[in-house]
């Protein structure tokens, strides 16, 4: 059984005990522990159940590569599933629960799956999907959902209460990994004057060397790391980041590093995670190597661990994983574990070496220390259940039929050699070579990932570069299956990927079923999927696959290494963008007033515009009717600030305006306004609005609210890229002005009451004129334009005085019952007048001619944007759908977007149609439903009744009429 040793543990502080709970049971660890060392120190070997068969599982590794020991961490607003105990720093009060067990970890009903393993082979899901299909939904899926899977999703009603952030950083050299190789690389770069960022994914630096007790430059590794790190921290050009993992390397030296700022201090007033978005000149992967498991029957049992992890627990945390530990290996390195444990007084049952002879320096030292070494041996089977009780030994070169000894032990260390961590090298396409001697893939220095200059921007150093072992070590023996000719029964119990329950037999089955590509085999068998992405299983799995396919390993290749290296939190990806600042909210100067008046908001781009202002007890429809009636009968106010306002100025501005708009703008007289249309090159209507000629060489273009930024960019695009020699400037003045529409028969009286130096009389200020001056003590520009059919002025004042001016208008209009109206009243009133709305009557496929706007298309101009597009065959076809008004015979409101069906099918087998509704409202002015729509050959069919789909099914009859329903002569706006 695992236990805490009386002494040792270079990372823990025995004077600071920490209590934590696992499945509700209180346990004690020490400051400096990981949750893994805390659990093992407290004797907890069983930590979870496997994905598919619900087999008991224990901790295998000591770092990020851990496949098994995933727990649900925290509770409520801090609950997080699938947290690796090996990378979770222990803190007081930590609460962890094991996953994938039911009803309990100790007794799990799902473990019956393990007895059914013959029926859950590789590709089980795919095979089940195929037949019989009806069983999937009602039988298979509910059962699989109950029994498979890892952690639980957090309760949907909870919200993560921690904060997260990101940080943009820049450096010449980014080093991933704070072991000896990483520290050396950092020192070299820093001493050369480079800006350096050094990251280490754990809380402590030094990597393997400090555990293995290496000597560096005549000092102990610990002392060397401490002194070099202190030197680095003292340098101005160096940033040292513990608890920070380089998660991904992206093109052009962009890297994401994931800093776990406060995972170990929950509740601290700090961001929990910080995502570093780093632009680096060079990225150095000093990411070390990961030890490989060996594939033998029962290798997934709790207590079977990586040999190096066992010495990590002993040296770093003073934890022994068992009272009597056996080690099985194919290399010399694992002897270090035996030696270190032996020194600490842990009984070593034996080192089981697959090689015929163990002749290296380390085996010699082991023998000298009295440790038993069994050569040419293999683990045939691990005995035990929820923990190891012993191992059956057989000859390595056998089928496992003959057991020559059963060795009693309560933990088993395994070492199948080491694989360099080449992930960061590979993320952007760095290529690998197969190293025969070490049986691993290593970076090919001639084929690095390439930057903008065609040169490599990632390099690997140390173990990550395949610099493993040293000269005194005897060659390792590649071992992909133990024993070498293991029988089917043994192979079906030899796990390759314990997280996803993939065994040697599964990969062999996939190969027999025709899976030759390693990528396909991965998906089919689930080998190397999920949270650990096969850090332990990939090489072993593809070696088995290669063997089954009868081809060398490099020919099989690896699966693709993709970021992130290990999972990072969604919080870190989100950063600060949550709650109030999830997205920018654009506010007009009157925004707070609208809010105070209870506006029902409508999102318009990032703006919020009042849809209507419902009073207490009033429905939205009632509010809209009231606002319209007030405006049509007296006077109303609209916040029109969001409309785009773009200044176009210069000697060539008139020429430019004539190109932008379909109609003639260069002839507009100073002081006048004109409605204009803008099309894209295809002739499709893009935006509309009123243009005012400000001076001889300047025009002010009003755009739609949603079009302001887009049209400004469109103008700059043409000026910068196509007509770069034209003397025109454009300035986006959208936000400079608050713009307020004062609308209704009393509008003039309201403005006159404000007083000022502008003559507002009908004679001197006619429709479609603009003037500027003082109005109510505010500098104002007034446009006499109307989108409602009423007498109407749009007043632009400096934004900083918008609210004050708005309130002056409200005060002046009080005697007329003035009220604000929202976008819905605006829409209904414009529809009553038959005015089109970009985005309702247009959808990117509509040309102005479809909307009866031929009058706004100049025939005199040689060219304008969209002119040639409109002349194409399809655009001049008589079969186009064109704008008409629609009146239901029963006065009801047509459904928005409703189609007008016809009998028969088109070439695509779809029902034939002859039109669709583009705008539809209840008109309080007319007391009935009104609509506009695009109808096949519509304007020629006035008075005809056609059918439209009804929202409730069936159809509704509507008569084709003129789109203008109200004041066709325009008398009301012209008073």
């Amino acid at each position, binding site marked *: 059984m695992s236990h805490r040793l009386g002494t040792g543990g270079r990372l823990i502080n025995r004077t600071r005990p920490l209590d934590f709970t696992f499945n509700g049971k209180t346990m004690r660890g020490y400051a400096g522990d990981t949750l893994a060392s805390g659990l093992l120190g407290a004797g907890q070997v069983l930590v979870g159940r496997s994905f598919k068969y619900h087999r008991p599982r224990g901790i295998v590794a000591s770092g990020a590569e851990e496949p098994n020991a995933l727990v649900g961490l925290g509770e409520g607003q801090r609950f997080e599933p699938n947290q690796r105990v090996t990378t979770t720093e222990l803190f007081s009060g930590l609460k962890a629960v094991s996953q994938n067990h039911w009803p309990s970890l100790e007794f799990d009903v799902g473990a019956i799956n393990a007895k059914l393993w013959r029926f859950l082979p590789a590709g089980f899901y795919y095979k089940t999907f195929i037949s019989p299909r009806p069983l999937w939904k009602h039988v298979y899926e509910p059962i699989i959902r109950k029994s498979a899977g890892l952690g639980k999703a957090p309760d949907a009603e909870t919200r993560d209460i921690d904060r997260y*952030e990101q940080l943009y950083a820049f450096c010449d050299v980014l080093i991933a990994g704070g072991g000896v190789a990483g520290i050396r690389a950092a020192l070299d770069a820093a001493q050369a004057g480079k800006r350096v960022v050094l990251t280490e994914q754990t809380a402590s630096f030094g990597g393997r060397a400090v555990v293995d007790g290496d000597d560096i430059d005549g000092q102990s590794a610990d002392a060397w790391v401490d002194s070099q790190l202190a030197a680095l921290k003292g340098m101005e050009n160096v940033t040292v980041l513990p608890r920070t993992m380089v998660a991904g390397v992206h093109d052009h030296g962009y890297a994401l590093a994931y800093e776990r700022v406060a995972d170990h201090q929950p509740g601290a007033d700090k961001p929990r995670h910080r995502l570093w978005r780093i632009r680096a000149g060079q990225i150095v992967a000093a990411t070390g190597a990961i030890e490989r498991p060996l594939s033998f029957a029962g290798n997934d049992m709790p207590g079977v661990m990586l040999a190096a992890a066992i010495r990590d627990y002993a040296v770093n945390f003073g934890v022994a994983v068992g009272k009597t530990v056996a080690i099985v290996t194919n290399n010399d390195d694992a002897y270090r574990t035996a030696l270190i444990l032996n020194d600490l007084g842990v009984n070593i049952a034996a080192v089981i070496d697959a090689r015929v002879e163990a002749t290296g320096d380390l085996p010699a030292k082991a023998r000298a220390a009295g440790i038993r070494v069994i050569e040419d041996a293999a683990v045939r089977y691990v005995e035990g259940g929820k923990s190891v009780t012993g191992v059956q030994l057989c000859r390595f070169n056998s089928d496992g039929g003959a057991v020559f000894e059963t060795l009693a032990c309560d933990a088993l260390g395994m070492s199948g050699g080491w694989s360099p961590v080449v992930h960061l090298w590979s993320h952007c396409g760095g290529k690998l070579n197969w190293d025969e001697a070490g049986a691993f893939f290593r970076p090919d220095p001639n084929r690095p990932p390439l930057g903008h200059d065609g040169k490599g921007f990632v390099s690997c150093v140390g173990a990550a570069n395949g610099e493993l072992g040293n000269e005194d070590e005897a060659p390792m023996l590649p071992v992909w299956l133990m024993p070498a000719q293991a029988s089917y029964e043994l192979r079906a119990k030899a796990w390759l990927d314990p997280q996803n329950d993939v065994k040697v037999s599964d990969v062999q089955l996939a190969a027999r079923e025709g899976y030759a590509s390693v990528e396909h085999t991965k998906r089919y068998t689930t080998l190397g999927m999920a949270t650990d992405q096969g850090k332990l299983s990939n090489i072993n799995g593809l070696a088995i696959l290669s063997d089954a396919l009868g081809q060398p390993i490099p020919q099989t290749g690896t699966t693709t290494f993709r970021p992130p290296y290990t999972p990072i939190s969604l919080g870190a990806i989100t950063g*600060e963008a949550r709650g109030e600042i999830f997205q920018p909210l654009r506010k007009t100067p009157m925004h707070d007033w609208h809010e105070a008046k209870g506006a029902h908001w409508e999102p318009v781009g990032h703006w919020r515009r009042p849809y209507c202002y419902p009073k207490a007890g009033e429905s939205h429809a009632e509010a809209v009717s009231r606002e319209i009636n007030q405006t049509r009968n007296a006077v109303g106010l609209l916040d029109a600030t969001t409309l785009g306002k773009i*200044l176009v100025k210069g000697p060539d501005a008139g020429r430019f305006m004539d190109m932008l708009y379909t109609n003639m703008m260069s002839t507009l007289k100073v002081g006048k306004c004109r409605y204009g249309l803008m099309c894209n090159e295809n002739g499709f209507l893009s935006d509309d609005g009123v243009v005012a000629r400000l001076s001889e060489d300047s025009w002010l273009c009003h755009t739609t609210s949603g079009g302001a930024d887009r049209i400004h960019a469109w103008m700059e695009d043409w000026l910068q890229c196509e007509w770069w020699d034209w003397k025109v400037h454009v*300035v986006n003045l959208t*936000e400079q002005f608050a713009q307020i529409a004062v609308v209704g028969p009393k509008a003039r009286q309201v403005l006159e009451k404000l007083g000022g130096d502008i003559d507002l009389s009908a004679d001197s200020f006619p429709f479609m004129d603009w003037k500027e001056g003082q109005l109510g003590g505010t500098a104002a520009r007034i446009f006499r334009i109307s989108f409602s059919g009423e007498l109407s002025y749009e007043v632009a004042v*400096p*934004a*900083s005085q918008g609210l004050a001016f708005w309130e002056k208008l409200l005060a002046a209009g009080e005697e007329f019952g003035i009220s604000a109206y929202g976008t819905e009243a605006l829409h209904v009133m414009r529809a009553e007048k038959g005015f089109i709305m970009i985005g309702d009557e247009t959808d990117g496929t509509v040309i102005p001619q479809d909307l009866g706007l031929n009058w706004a298309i100049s025939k005199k101009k040689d060219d304008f944007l969209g002119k040639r597009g409109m002349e194409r065959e399809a655009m001049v076809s008589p079969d186009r759908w064109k704008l008409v008004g629609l009146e239901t015979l029963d006065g009801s409101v047509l459904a928005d977007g409703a189609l007008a069906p016809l009998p028969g099918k088109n070439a695509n087998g779809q029902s034939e149609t002859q039109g669709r509704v583009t705008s539809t409202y209840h008109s309080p002015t007319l007391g009935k439903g009104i609509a506009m729509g695009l109808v096949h050959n519509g304007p020629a069919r006035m008075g005809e009744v056609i059918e439209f789909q009804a929202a409730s099914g069936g159809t509704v009859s509507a008569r084709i009429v003129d789109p203008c329903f109200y004041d066709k002569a325009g008398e009301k706006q012209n008073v």
Partner: protein
Amino acid sequence: MSDAVSALKGARASGMVDLADAGPTGMITLRGDHGLLGDSLSSVLGLSAPERRRVVTGEAGEVLWMSPDELLVVLPYDTAPDVAAALETALGDAFATVAVVSDARSVMHLSGAQTRDVLAKLMPVDFAGFELGELRRSRVAQVAAAVWRRSENDWALICFRSVGGYVFEALATVGKPGGEVGLYR
């Protein structure tokens, strides 16, 4: 205009840095050849056109480099209309555009030794070697913004008026105590 109200209405926040609404601020956009614009600035304000990504500062105000053919004059709010008129006159018939944009933007001041660290949480900008009088047009989180360094620890930031509240909240959020990073020392 004494009744001018800035979008942020004098908002302030303190944390890793002090963040404050600069209040109503005069701003004039100039477009045209920088040599031409510089001459008019010199005659009207005694200022000159800045070099690329720099700010020229004088008693009358500041001139910000915005693009190869655009400058922004920052000056007291009330003086902007008259200065703009004077610049128009000085430019005469030359191909140039002058527009008062005092109300189109929010101006914020940030101060404190950690200002660069706070800005770096939202702006993809390398602040190492960012000199006094240097300016960068970039973005703050999801919207356009520009910053310039007025002294060792004093910075100014502009964004569009409608998103002033968003930018202020975003800066205040990432500038909360506990978020110290020590990136720029």
